[in-house]
Protein backbone atom coordinates (compact mmCIF):
# COMPACT_ATOMS: atom_id res chain seq x y z
CA UNK A 1 0.00 0.00 0.00
CA UNK A 2 1.45 3.31 -1.08
CA UNK A 3 1.78 6.13 1.39
CA UNK A 4 0.31 9.42 0.41
CA UNK A 5 3.06 12.00 0.02
CA UNK A 6 1.05 14.92 1.34
CA UNK A 7 -2.49 14.86 2.63
CA UNK A 8 -2.88 18.61 2.35
CA UNK A 9 -0.96 21.86 2.08
CA UNK A 10 -1.91 23.37 5.44
CA UNK A 11 0.89 25.18 7.29
CA UNK A 12 0.63 26.90 10.62
CA UNK A 13 3.23 29.22 12.08
CA UNK A 14 2.37 29.35 15.77
CA UNK A 15 4.85 32.20 16.38
CA UNK A 16 2.61 34.58 14.40
CA UNK A 17 -0.63 33.60 16.16
CA UNK A 18 -2.34 36.36 18.16
CA UNK A 19 -4.95 33.93 19.52
CA UNK A 20 -7.95 35.76 18.06
CA UNK A 21 -9.86 32.49 17.74
CA UNK A 22 -11.02 33.11 14.19
CA UNK A 23 -9.53 29.91 12.73
CA UNK A 24 -11.38 27.64 15.15
CA UNK A 25 -14.54 29.65 14.44
CA UNK A 26 -14.17 29.33 10.66
CA UNK A 27 -12.92 25.75 10.23
CA UNK A 28 -15.74 23.30 9.44
CA UNK A 29 -13.62 20.28 10.39
CA UNK A 30 -12.28 21.21 13.83
CA UNK A 31 -8.71 21.35 12.53
CA UNK A 32 -7.92 24.21 14.90
CA UNK A 33 -9.01 24.48 18.53
CA UNK A 34 -8.74 27.46 20.87
CA UNK A 35 -5.64 27.28 23.08
CA UNK A 36 -4.54 29.26 26.11
CA UNK A 37 -1.81 31.28 24.34
CA UNK A 38 -2.29 30.37 20.70
CA UNK A 39 -4.58 28.37 18.47
CA UNK A 40 -3.80 24.67 18.50
CA UNK A 41 -3.55 22.58 15.37
CA UNK A 42 -5.44 19.52 16.60
CA UNK A 43 -6.63 17.66 13.49
CA UNK A 44 -4.36 18.63 10.58
CA UNK A 45 -5.28 15.46 8.68
CA UNK A 46 -8.95 16.54 8.50
CA UNK A 47 -8.12 19.69 6.51
CA UNK A 48 -9.96 19.92 3.18
CA UNK A 49 -8.13 23.04 2.02
CA UNK A 50 -11.22 25.25 1.89
CA UNK A 51 -9.10 28.22 2.94
CA UNK A 52 -11.47 29.58 5.60
CA UNK A 53 -8.74 29.72 8.29
CA UNK A 54 -6.23 31.47 6.07
CA UNK A 55 -8.86 33.96 4.86
CA UNK A 56 -9.72 34.84 8.44
CA UNK A 57 -6.25 34.86 9.99
CA UNK A 58 -5.32 38.52 10.53
CA UNK A 59 -1.58 37.87 10.90
CA UNK A 60 -0.93 35.38 8.10
CA UNK A 61 0.01 32.64 10.55
CA UNK A 62 -1.90 30.09 8.46
CA UNK A 63 -1.27 29.28 4.82
CA UNK A 64 -3.01 26.70 2.70
CA UNK A 65 -3.15 26.18 -1.04
CA UNK A 66 -6.91 26.35 -1.13
CA UNK A 67 -9.11 25.06 -3.89
CA UNK A 68 -12.04 22.84 -4.64
CA UNK A 69 -11.49 19.11 -4.16
CA UNK A 70 -13.57 18.20 -7.20
CA UNK A 71 -12.21 15.54 -9.54
CA UNK A 72 -14.43 16.48 -12.46
CA UNK A 73 -13.32 20.10 -12.34
CA UNK A 74 -9.66 19.13 -12.14
CA UNK A 75 -9.84 16.62 -14.97
CA UNK A 76 -11.63 19.16 -17.17
CA UNK A 77 -9.09 21.81 -16.27
CA UNK A 78 -6.25 19.41 -17.11
CA UNK A 79 -7.83 18.54 -20.47
CA UNK A 80 -8.31 22.20 -21.32
CA UNK A 81 -4.86 23.01 -19.95
CA UNK A 82 -6.23 25.78 -17.77
CA UNK A 83 -6.05 26.22 -14.03
CA UNK A 84 -8.44 24.41 -11.70
CA UNK A 85 -11.98 25.65 -11.84
CA UNK A 86 -14.31 26.18 -8.95
CA UNK A 87 -18.05 25.85 -8.71
CA UNK A 88 -20.58 28.19 -10.17
CA UNK A 89 -21.77 29.99 -13.27
CA UNK A 90 -18.58 30.17 -15.30
CA UNK A 91 -17.47 26.64 -14.63
CA UNK A 92 -20.44 24.73 -13.33
CA UNK A 93 -19.18 21.43 -12.06
CA UNK A 94 -19.87 20.70 -8.43
CA UNK A 95 -23.25 20.13 -6.86
Amino acid at each position, binding site marked *: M*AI*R*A*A*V*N*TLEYNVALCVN*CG*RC*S*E*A*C*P*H*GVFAPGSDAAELVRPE*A*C*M*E*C*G*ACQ*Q*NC*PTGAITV*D*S*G*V*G*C*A*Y*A*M*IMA*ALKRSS*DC*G*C*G*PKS*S*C*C*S
Partner: protein
Amino acid sequence: MGANSAEIRRTTSKRTPADRWDHFLARWGVNRLGHRVEPGLYALGAPTPDSPVFVTANYTLSFDALRSALDGVSAYILVLDTEGVNVWCAAGKGTFGTDELVRRIDLSALGRVVSHRRLILPQLGAPGVSAHEVQPRSGFRVEYGPVRAADLPAYLATGKATPEMRQVTFWLRDRAVLIPVELRHVFLPTVVAASVLYFTAGALAAWGAVAAVLAGVVAFPILLPWLPTRDFSTKGFILGALVALPFARAMARHGAGLWFGIASAGALALVMIPVTSFLALNFTGSTPFTSRTGVRWEIYRYVQVMAAMALSGIMLAVIVLVISLIRG
Protein backbone atom coordinates in the same frame (compact mmCIF):
# COMPACT_ATOMS: atom_id res chain seq x y z
CA MET B 1 -29.65 51.07 -8.35
CA GLY B 2 -29.52 53.85 -5.74
CA ALA B 3 -32.94 54.35 -4.21
CA ASN B 4 -34.13 50.97 -5.41
CA SER B 5 -31.29 49.08 -3.76
CA ALA B 6 -31.91 50.75 -0.43
CA GLU B 7 -35.48 49.50 -0.21
CA ILE B 8 -36.21 46.83 2.37
CA ARG B 9 -38.21 43.87 1.13
CA ARG B 10 -40.37 41.80 3.41
CA THR B 11 -40.17 38.05 3.88
CA THR B 12 -41.59 35.38 6.17
CA SER B 13 -40.47 32.05 7.63
CA LYS B 14 -43.11 30.13 5.70
CA ARG B 15 -42.30 27.74 2.89
CA THR B 16 -45.12 27.91 0.38
CA PRO B 17 -45.98 25.11 -2.08
CA ALA B 18 -44.33 27.31 -4.74
CA ASP B 19 -41.11 27.32 -2.66
CA ARG B 20 -41.22 23.55 -2.33
CA TRP B 21 -41.71 23.14 -6.07
CA ASP B 22 -38.75 25.46 -6.66
CA HIS B 23 -36.62 23.36 -4.27
CA PHE B 24 -37.68 20.18 -6.05
CA LEU B 25 -36.62 21.61 -9.42
CA ALA B 26 -33.34 22.88 -7.95
CA ARG B 27 -32.57 19.40 -6.59
CA TRP B 28 -33.12 17.97 -10.07
CA GLY B 29 -30.82 20.58 -11.57
CA VAL B 30 -33.57 22.15 -13.68
CA ASN B 31 -32.58 25.69 -14.67
CA ARG B 32 -29.50 25.26 -12.53
CA LEU B 33 -28.58 28.90 -12.00
CA GLY B 34 -32.10 30.29 -12.11
CA HIS B 35 -33.09 29.67 -8.49
CA ARG B 36 -32.40 33.19 -7.37
CA VAL B 37 -33.56 35.66 -4.77
CA GLU B 38 -33.22 39.39 -5.43
CA PRO B 39 -30.06 40.56 -3.57
CA GLY B 40 -30.52 43.23 -0.91
CA LEU B 41 -31.97 43.72 2.54
CA TYR B 42 -35.04 41.83 3.80
CA ALA B 43 -37.12 42.30 6.94
CA LEU B 44 -38.28 39.13 8.67
CA GLY B 45 -41.06 39.55 11.27
CA ALA B 46 -41.03 43.03 12.81
CA PRO B 47 -37.35 43.96 13.19
CA THR B 48 -36.17 47.01 15.17
CA PRO B 49 -32.78 48.79 14.87
CA ASP B 50 -31.51 46.36 17.54
CA SER B 51 -32.49 43.21 15.64
CA PRO B 52 -29.77 40.84 14.42
CA VAL B 53 -28.61 40.87 10.79
CA PHE B 54 -28.06 37.56 9.00
CA VAL B 55 -26.17 37.30 5.73
CA THR B 56 -26.84 34.69 3.02
CA ALA B 57 -26.51 33.90 -0.69
CA ASN B 58 -29.12 34.67 -3.35
CA TYR B 59 -29.83 30.99 -3.99
CA THR B 60 -33.38 30.01 -3.03
CA LEU B 61 -32.30 26.90 -1.10
CA SER B 62 -29.87 28.99 0.99
CA PHE B 63 -32.25 31.89 1.60
CA ASP B 64 -35.19 29.61 2.38
CA ALA B 65 -33.15 27.45 4.79
CA LEU B 66 -32.18 30.62 6.68
CA ARG B 67 -35.60 32.26 6.84
CA SER B 68 -37.46 29.08 7.78
CA ALA B 69 -34.94 28.35 10.56
CA LEU B 70 -35.73 31.80 12.00
CA ASP B 71 -39.41 31.11 12.61
CA GLY B 72 -40.65 33.54 15.26
CA VAL B 73 -37.48 35.67 15.16
CA SER B 74 -37.52 39.29 14.03
CA ALA B 75 -34.39 40.02 12.05
CA TYR B 76 -32.85 41.52 8.95
CA ILE B 77 -31.50 39.30 6.20
CA LEU B 78 -28.82 40.70 3.90
CA VAL B 79 -28.77 38.73 0.65
CA LEU B 80 -25.49 38.90 -1.30
CA ASP B 81 -25.40 38.53 -5.06
CA THR B 82 -23.73 35.14 -5.55
CA GLU B 83 -25.26 34.61 -9.00
CA GLY B 84 -27.68 31.99 -7.73
CA VAL B 85 -24.98 29.80 -6.15
CA ASN B 86 -25.13 28.44 -2.58
CA VAL B 87 -23.02 29.88 0.25
CA TRP B 88 -20.32 27.20 0.33
CA CYS B 89 -19.63 27.06 -3.42
CA ALA B 90 -19.93 30.84 -3.76
CA ALA B 91 -17.44 31.29 -0.91
CA GLY B 92 -15.04 28.95 -2.73
CA LYS B 93 -15.35 31.12 -5.81
CA GLY B 94 -15.15 34.34 -3.83
CA THR B 95 -18.56 35.67 -4.94
CA PHE B 96 -19.77 35.21 -1.37
CA GLY B 97 -16.84 37.36 -0.32
CA THR B 98 -15.47 40.42 1.42
CA ASP B 99 -15.95 42.75 -1.56
CA GLU B 100 -19.57 41.80 -2.22
CA LEU B 101 -20.40 41.93 1.49
CA VAL B 102 -18.93 45.43 1.90
CA ARG B 103 -20.65 46.59 -1.30
CA ARG B 104 -24.02 45.17 -0.25
CA ILE B 105 -23.79 46.76 3.23
CA ASP B 106 -23.22 50.08 1.48
CA LEU B 107 -25.94 49.64 -1.17
CA SER B 108 -28.56 48.66 1.40
CA ALA B 109 -27.58 51.53 3.74
CA LEU B 110 -27.50 48.94 6.53
CA GLY B 111 -25.68 51.37 8.83
CA ARG B 112 -28.77 53.58 8.89
CA VAL B 113 -31.21 50.70 9.35
CA VAL B 114 -29.67 49.11 12.43
CA SER B 115 -28.03 50.78 15.43
CA HIS B 116 -25.55 47.97 16.18
CA ARG B 117 -22.59 46.89 14.06
CA ARG B 118 -22.77 43.13 14.11
CA LEU B 119 -23.36 40.68 11.24
CA ILE B 120 -24.05 36.97 11.57
CA LEU B 121 -22.62 35.05 8.61
CA PRO B 122 -23.04 31.36 7.87
CA GLN B 123 -19.84 29.60 8.89
CA LEU B 124 -19.51 28.00 5.46
CA GLY B 125 -19.16 31.50 4.00
CA ALA B 126 -15.80 31.88 5.77
CA PRO B 127 -13.63 30.63 2.85
CA GLY B 128 -14.68 33.73 0.90
CA VAL B 129 -14.73 36.35 3.64
CA SER B 130 -11.94 37.97 5.65
CA ALA B 131 -13.69 39.08 8.82
CA HIS B 132 -10.78 41.32 9.82
CA GLU B 133 -11.05 43.19 6.51
CA VAL B 134 -14.81 43.65 6.65
CA GLN B 135 -14.64 45.62 9.89
CA PRO B 136 -12.28 48.44 8.80
CA ARG B 137 -14.01 48.65 5.40
CA SER B 138 -17.63 48.72 6.59
CA GLY B 139 -17.64 49.26 10.33
CA PHE B 140 -19.45 45.95 10.81
CA ARG B 141 -18.03 43.11 12.86
CA VAL B 142 -18.44 39.65 11.33
CA GLU B 143 -19.53 36.81 13.54
CA TYR B 144 -19.66 33.31 12.10
CA GLY B 145 -22.83 31.50 13.09
CA PRO B 146 -23.28 27.73 12.94
CA VAL B 147 -22.74 25.64 9.79
CA ARG B 148 -26.43 24.64 9.61
CA ALA B 149 -29.25 27.19 9.65
CA ALA B 150 -31.29 24.74 11.75
CA ASP B 151 -28.90 25.38 14.67
CA LEU B 152 -29.59 29.14 14.64
CA PRO B 153 -32.27 29.14 17.38
CA ALA B 154 -29.85 27.42 19.76
CA TYR B 155 -27.06 29.74 18.65
CA LEU B 156 -29.21 32.83 19.26
CA ALA B 157 -30.25 31.54 22.68
CA THR B 158 -26.69 31.08 23.95
CA GLY B 159 -24.78 33.45 21.65
CA LYS B 160 -22.29 30.67 21.06
CA ALA B 161 -21.80 27.93 18.50
CA THR B 162 -20.83 24.62 20.08
CA PRO B 163 -18.05 22.54 18.46
CA GLU B 164 -20.81 20.28 17.03
CA MET B 165 -22.48 23.27 15.37
CA ARG B 166 -19.13 24.21 13.84
CA GLN B 167 -18.54 20.80 12.26
CA VAL B 168 -19.79 20.09 8.77
CA THR B 169 -21.58 16.75 8.46
CA PHE B 170 -22.52 14.60 5.52
CA TRP B 171 -25.24 12.28 6.75
CA LEU B 172 -27.31 9.94 4.61
CA ARG B 173 -29.94 12.62 4.07
CA ASP B 174 -27.35 15.17 2.91
CA ARG B 175 -25.94 12.63 0.46
CA ALA B 176 -29.30 11.35 -0.77
CA VAL B 177 -30.55 14.81 -1.82
CA LEU B 178 -27.64 14.99 -4.29
CA ILE B 179 -28.70 11.87 -6.18
CA PRO B 180 -31.28 13.51 -8.52
CA VAL B 181 -28.82 16.03 -9.90
CA GLU B 182 -26.20 13.30 -10.36
CA LEU B 183 -28.75 11.17 -12.21
CA ARG B 184 -29.56 14.04 -14.48
CA HIS B 185 -25.90 14.50 -15.40
CA VAL B 186 -25.49 10.88 -16.51
CA PHE B 187 -28.92 10.24 -18.01
CA LEU B 188 -28.28 11.00 -21.68
CA PRO B 189 -24.80 9.43 -22.05
CA THR B 190 -26.08 6.31 -20.27
CA VAL B 191 -29.09 5.93 -22.55
CA VAL B 192 -26.87 6.35 -25.62
CA ALA B 193 -24.23 3.89 -24.38
CA ALA B 194 -26.83 1.32 -23.31
CA SER B 195 -28.59 1.54 -26.69
CA VAL B 196 -25.35 1.04 -28.59
CA LEU B 197 -24.47 -1.91 -26.37
CA TYR B 198 -27.92 -3.41 -26.77
CA PHE B 199 -27.52 -3.67 -30.52
CA THR B 200 -23.84 -4.68 -30.55
CA ALA B 201 -23.32 -6.82 -27.46
CA GLY B 202 -26.84 -7.66 -26.30
CA ALA B 203 -29.28 -6.88 -23.53
CA LEU B 204 -27.07 -8.19 -20.74
CA ALA B 205 -24.25 -5.80 -21.62
CA ALA B 206 -26.70 -2.90 -21.94
CA TRP B 207 -28.19 -3.58 -18.49
CA GLY B 208 -24.67 -3.98 -17.14
CA ALA B 209 -23.83 -0.47 -18.29
CA VAL B 210 -26.97 0.91 -16.64
CA ALA B 211 -26.16 -0.96 -13.43
CA ALA B 212 -22.57 0.33 -13.38
CA VAL B 213 -23.79 3.92 -13.75
CA LEU B 214 -26.51 3.54 -11.11
CA ALA B 215 -23.95 2.02 -8.75
CA GLY B 216 -21.78 5.11 -9.22
CA VAL B 217 -24.45 7.80 -8.87
CA VAL B 218 -27.09 6.21 -6.62
CA ALA B 219 -25.56 3.41 -4.53
CA PHE B 220 -22.21 5.15 -4.04
CA PRO B 221 -23.52 8.33 -2.37
CA ILE B 222 -25.73 6.21 -0.11
CA LEU B 223 -23.05 3.68 0.85
CA LEU B 224 -20.11 6.13 1.01
CA PRO B 225 -19.18 5.83 4.70
CA TRP B 226 -19.61 2.06 4.77
CA LEU B 227 -17.48 1.21 1.77
CA PRO B 228 -14.00 0.15 2.86
CA THR B 229 -10.81 2.14 2.06
CA ARG B 230 -10.42 5.90 2.16
CA ASP B 231 -9.93 6.82 -1.49
CA PHE B 232 -13.11 7.34 -3.47
CA SER B 233 -11.66 5.51 -6.49
CA THR B 234 -10.92 2.34 -4.54
CA LYS B 235 -14.31 2.49 -2.85
CA GLY B 236 -15.67 2.72 -6.40
CA PHE B 237 -13.59 -0.26 -7.56
CA ILE B 238 -15.00 -2.37 -4.73
CA LEU B 239 -18.61 -1.30 -5.34
CA GLY B 240 -18.14 -1.68 -9.10
CA ALA B 241 -16.79 -5.21 -8.68
CA LEU B 242 -19.73 -6.20 -6.45
CA VAL B 243 -22.20 -4.92 -9.03
CA ALA B 244 -20.31 -6.38 -12.00
CA LEU B 245 -20.05 -9.86 -10.46
CA PRO B 246 -23.63 -11.08 -11.11
CA PHE B 247 -23.57 -9.65 -14.63
CA ALA B 248 -20.23 -11.30 -15.39
CA ARG B 249 -21.55 -14.63 -14.07
CA ALA B 250 -24.64 -14.41 -16.22
CA MET B 251 -22.49 -13.46 -19.18
CA ALA B 252 -20.17 -16.44 -18.62
CA ARG B 253 -23.14 -18.84 -18.72
CA HIS B 254 -24.48 -17.04 -21.74
CA GLY B 255 -21.37 -17.49 -23.90
CA ALA B 256 -21.02 -20.42 -26.25
CA GLY B 257 -18.19 -22.46 -24.83
CA LEU B 258 -16.12 -22.07 -21.70
CA TRP B 259 -13.34 -19.75 -22.94
CA PHE B 260 -15.76 -17.67 -24.91
CA GLY B 261 -17.94 -17.19 -21.84
CA ILE B 262 -15.03 -16.27 -19.63
CA ALA B 263 -13.75 -13.73 -22.16
CA SER B 264 -17.18 -12.08 -22.51
CA ALA B 265 -17.61 -11.97 -18.73
CA GLY B 266 -14.14 -10.48 -18.31
CA ALA B 267 -14.79 -7.84 -20.94
CA LEU B 268 -18.03 -6.79 -19.24
CA ALA B 269 -16.45 -6.57 -15.79
CA LEU B 270 -13.42 -4.69 -17.13
CA VAL B 271 -15.71 -2.00 -18.51
CA MET B 272 -18.28 -1.88 -15.70
CA ILE B 273 -15.86 -1.54 -12.78
CA PRO B 274 -13.99 1.59 -13.97
CA VAL B 275 -17.29 3.28 -14.92
CA THR B 276 -18.53 2.96 -11.34
CA SER B 277 -15.15 3.94 -9.97
CA PHE B 278 -14.87 7.04 -12.16
CA LEU B 279 -18.33 8.22 -11.12
CA ALA B 280 -17.36 7.58 -7.50
CA LEU B 281 -14.22 9.70 -7.96
CA ASN B 282 -16.37 12.47 -9.43
CA PHE B 283 -18.52 12.46 -6.31
CA THR B 284 -15.57 14.09 -4.47
CA GLY B 285 -16.82 17.44 -5.79
CA SER B 286 -20.12 17.00 -3.98
CA THR B 287 -18.71 16.19 -0.56
CA PRO B 288 -17.75 18.73 2.08
CA PHE B 289 -14.50 17.04 3.08
CA THR B 290 -12.24 16.10 0.16
CA SER B 291 -9.16 18.29 -0.28
CA ARG B 292 -7.73 19.37 -3.60
CA THR B 293 -4.38 17.77 -2.77
CA GLY B 294 -6.11 14.48 -1.96
CA VAL B 295 -8.23 14.50 -5.11
CA ARG B 296 -5.25 15.37 -7.31
CA TRP B 297 -3.39 12.46 -5.76
CA GLU B 298 -6.31 10.15 -6.57
CA ILE B 299 -6.53 11.37 -10.15
CA TYR B 300 -2.83 10.72 -10.80
CA ARG B 301 -2.97 7.37 -9.13
CA TYR B 302 -6.21 5.86 -10.40
CA VAL B 303 -7.50 7.50 -13.58
CA GLN B 304 -4.87 5.72 -15.69
CA VAL B 305 -5.83 2.40 -14.11
CA MET B 306 -9.50 3.07 -14.89
CA ALA B 307 -8.70 3.99 -18.49
CA ALA B 308 -6.51 0.91 -18.94
CA MET B 309 -9.22 -1.38 -17.56
CA ALA B 310 -11.94 0.11 -19.74
CA LEU B 311 -9.77 0.04 -22.83
CA SER B 312 -8.69 -3.58 -22.38
CA GLY B 313 -12.32 -4.51 -21.69
CA ILE B 314 -13.44 -2.88 -24.92
CA MET B 315 -10.61 -4.56 -26.87
CA LEU B 316 -11.50 -7.93 -25.39
CA ALA B 317 -15.15 -7.37 -26.28
CA VAL B 318 -14.23 -6.51 -29.87
CA ILE B 319 -12.10 -9.65 -30.14
CA VAL B 320 -14.96 -11.78 -28.77
CA LEU B 321 -17.37 -10.14 -31.19
CA VAL B 322 -15.10 -10.65 -34.19
CA ILE B 323 -14.48 -14.30 -33.33
CA SER B 324 -18.17 -14.94 -32.85
CA LEU B 325 -18.87 -13.37 -36.25
CA ILE B 326 -16.21 -15.50 -37.91
CA ARG B 327 -17.57 -18.62 -36.28
CA GLY B 328 -21.04 -17.56 -37.47
